[in-house]
């Protein structure tokens, strides 16, 4: 679960596209790449957890030697479909955005090998207006379906918990709470990576201060939603009058793992509240620290949710979780995997959506520089009638 942290990239990219937020062009390629690599890391863990990786095909509805089919009433199977769909669609969405930019790289390639590889992946793109028309429509539809897809993925992930009858998990607030948390942590991780890249590659003119300001405001909003969800969980635990539910939350906040719970609350609820202040929203070192805190806090959120199991209905399974060296190094290994892919992406692929950045320039408007706006508009509408 830990690597669900960076999954909101496609969501932010798609939602901002649908709302015609032009500043999206500064962050979309980054956030989509981050999503894909994070899902790749996350995909490793179910592989480890099933224990017998060679029978992982049981999770897919494939006719097999035992005539056994997967159980479609189980949220775990919904998760298989949700996450694999999410990964595939994120890759398609990302690749589709890359096609025109790969063509740009192809036309500027300096070596034969690069030119050949880029030619193959650019698919012979020649910037045709007839192509752009289909391309733009297809991209719009992809963004429109990606948005409910991401909402559904995080809802279904939360069903893995919420549909089980475990105190502290069996709550209806989980789907919206997971979606808000995903957007929250997604923006935080994008900003962490973007602040570094902005500094290293000098992207100050593309990633402007007001873009960072917008992202900070998003984190303030979604961080407050997450804080509301935490408060509501506690309230419902008390209000339900269910002793098991009450114990689960009492144990979370004040039990053996109190430190994890309060790190989570400090990082996810208190830290982003600093973004109410404009000075902080425009201060790069402080916002960098806050995004790091949010990344830590969102990791602890999953830790706190899962670790509730340390005191369930079977006293034989009670205990205090201490990570083994295998746990720790597996986790660190995912950082390595993510970092490797992300650095390869930065080195070999367009980091920014080149065509989209060009498209939102004032000069890109076919009526740029027309003094009489009214006549220019009527001219367009006339010509459309032909």
């Amino acid at each position, binding site marked *: 679960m830990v690597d669900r942290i960076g999954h909101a990239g496609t969501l932010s990219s798609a939602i901002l596209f649908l709302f015609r937020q032009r500043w999206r062009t500064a962050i979309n390629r980054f956030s989509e790449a981050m999503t894909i690599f994070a899902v790749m890391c996350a995909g490793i863990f179910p592989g480890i957890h099933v224990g017998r990786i060679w029978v992982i095909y049981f999770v897919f*509805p494939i006719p097999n030697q035992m*005539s056994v*089919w997967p159980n*479609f*009433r189980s949220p775990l199977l*919904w998760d298989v*479909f*949700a996450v694999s*769909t999410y990964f*595939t*669609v994120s890759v*398609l*969405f990302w*690749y*589709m955005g890359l096609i*025109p930019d790969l063509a*740009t790289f*192809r*036309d*500027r390639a300096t070596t034969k090998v690069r030119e050949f590889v880029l030619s*193959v992946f650019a*698919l*012979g*793109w*020649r*910037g*045709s*207006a*007839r*192509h*752009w*028309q*289909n*391309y*733009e*429509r*297809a991209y719009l*539809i*992809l963004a429109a*379906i990606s948005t*409910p*897809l991401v909402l*559904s993925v995080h809802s*279904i992930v939360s069903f893995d918990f919420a549909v089980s009858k475990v105190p502290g998990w069996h709550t209806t607030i989980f789907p919206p709470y997971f979606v808000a948390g995903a957007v929250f942590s997604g923006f935080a991780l994008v900003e962490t990576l973007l602040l570094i890249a902005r500094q290293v590659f000098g992207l100050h003119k593309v990633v402007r201060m007001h873009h960072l300001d917008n992202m900070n405001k998003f984190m303030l909003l979604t961080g407050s939603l997450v804080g509301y969800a935490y408060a509501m969980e506690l309230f419902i635990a008390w209000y339900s009058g269910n002793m098991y539910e009450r114990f689960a939350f009492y144990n979370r906040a004040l039990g053996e793992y109190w430190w994890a719970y309060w790190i989570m609350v400090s990082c996810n609820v208190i830290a982003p509240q600093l973004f109410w202040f404009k000075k902080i929203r425009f201060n790069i070192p402080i916002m960098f620290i806050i995004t790091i805190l949010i990344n830590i806090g969102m990791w602890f959120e999953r830790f706190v949710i899962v670790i509730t199991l340390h005191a369930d209905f079977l006293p034989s399974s009670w205990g205090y979780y201490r990570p083994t060296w295998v746990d720790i190094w597996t986790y660190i290994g995912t950082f390595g995997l993510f970092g490797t892919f992300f650095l390869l992406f930065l080195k070999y692929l367009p980091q920014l959506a*080149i*065509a*989209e950045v*060009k498209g939102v320039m004032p*000069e*890109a*408007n*076919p*009526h*740029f*520089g*027309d003094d009489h706006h009214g006549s220019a508009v009527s001219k*367009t509408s006339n*010509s*459309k009638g*032909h």
Partner: protein
Amino acid sequence: MEKTISDVKPKVFGVLAQFSSPKDVYHAAEKVRDKGYKKWDVHSPFPIHGIDGAMGLGDSRMGWIALFSAMAGCFGGFGLQYWINMFAQPVVIGGKPLNPYPAFVPVSFEPGILFTAFGCLLGMLALNGLPRLYHALFKSANFKKFSDDGFFISIEARDPRFNLNETRKLLEDIGGRNIEVVED
């Protein structure tokens, strides 16, 4: 246009002209459209807003492709679950019905999205005739600028109204620069 093999006359693909801004190419496209050309194209580094109107293009058919892929995915996903639970492996668990359709919503929804996404990418490529790694326009060295900051209009020789001299003249008159004849 000097030829190395003089006795084989290469076929002309069309005429290519460069324009300096989205605004110029937009107004030039309106004029080409008004001359009645059909087999011609505008090439730009990014989609120019309203250029489909200036070129007189119809609406994109992407929406229909997406709709049919979405329905195929949804009904396929639901049908798979229904068939498995009703016919392939009917197991009564806890006295619950064999067809608990609310539980089938996620795995109907997800394939719907998956198929739509493939429909969008593959449909876009199919409508555009891509991937097509060879194209006559790539022979023009100047054409490489389309992916940087160049705006081009190409008029193909297979257009019934195409006449090498007249078409070249038209492109000159509407402000085209670096006009060249591209061979197929």
